[in-house]
């Protein structure tokens, strides 16, 4: 019964996406760090993993989500143009994505807090 307390789909989803956002932050930070390393190719969350994640959110099967299945690949998106050395990192783009990802992380954190607060209210019978 106690296990079931934390099984609500939205709480599970916020947990999974927090993991993804934290890992993605590390990868974006290394892209930015290598903005001027000759030949470096930017790394991004693999599109196939992104799709599986979206699918499992849609059909509510996130209980089986395993953060270690997360995979990152070299970005094939032609929107990121390469310089003569083959490096396709753009500092501005990377900073923008970092900010966006951090905001998403913050929002997910708030959401998880909200779920926990609701649970606490249900247990104690009074708010806050």
């Amino acid at each position: 019964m106690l296990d079931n307390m934390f099984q609500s789909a939205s709480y599970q989803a916020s947990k999974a996406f927090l993991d993804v956002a934290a890992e993605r932050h590390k990868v974006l930070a290394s892209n930015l760090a290598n903005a001027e390393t000759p030949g470096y190719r930017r790394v991004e969350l693999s599109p196939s993993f992104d799709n599986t994640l979206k699918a499992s959110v849609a059909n509510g099967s996130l209980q089986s989500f395993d953060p270690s299945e997360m995979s990152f690949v070299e970005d094939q998106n032609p929107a990121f143009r390469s310089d003569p050395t083959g490096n396709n990192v753009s500092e501005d783009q990377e900073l923008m994505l970092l900010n966006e990802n951090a905001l998403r992380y913050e929002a997910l954190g708030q959401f998880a807090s909200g779920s926990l607060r609701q649970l606490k209210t249900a247990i104690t019978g009074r708010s806050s």
Partner: protein
Amino acid sequence: MDIIPGLSQTASALDANKQRLEIIAQNIANAQTTQGLDGEPYQRRGVSFVSVLQGANQKGVAVQEVFTDETPGPSVYNPSHPHADGEGMVRMPNVQMAVEMVDMISASRAYQANLSASKISRQMAESALRIGQ
């Protein structure tokens, strides 16, 4: 799992770019040095960056080597200069101020960008600590 995500890569980039700035400062300082310890005019130095693996998909950056630019510098006619040769020509360093300034701007921009990334990492760690409050 680190408490503050992505900090080691950002730190390595800050360090590498600081080394790059130091080398640029050295080039500018020696832009008029016509005789170094080896008796030759100063030759500009540069750094080359290389990725270092710090975990799955996480690459930091490091200075691979500090190389010497071997292009010959210009010779100017100045017979009164103590380093002038028999024909009154002085060999000058191959430092070009415009190149160094542009390089300096891009190094300090890269430093600033990584500094903002470290700020973002910190904010994320703080928001993680607030979960449940």
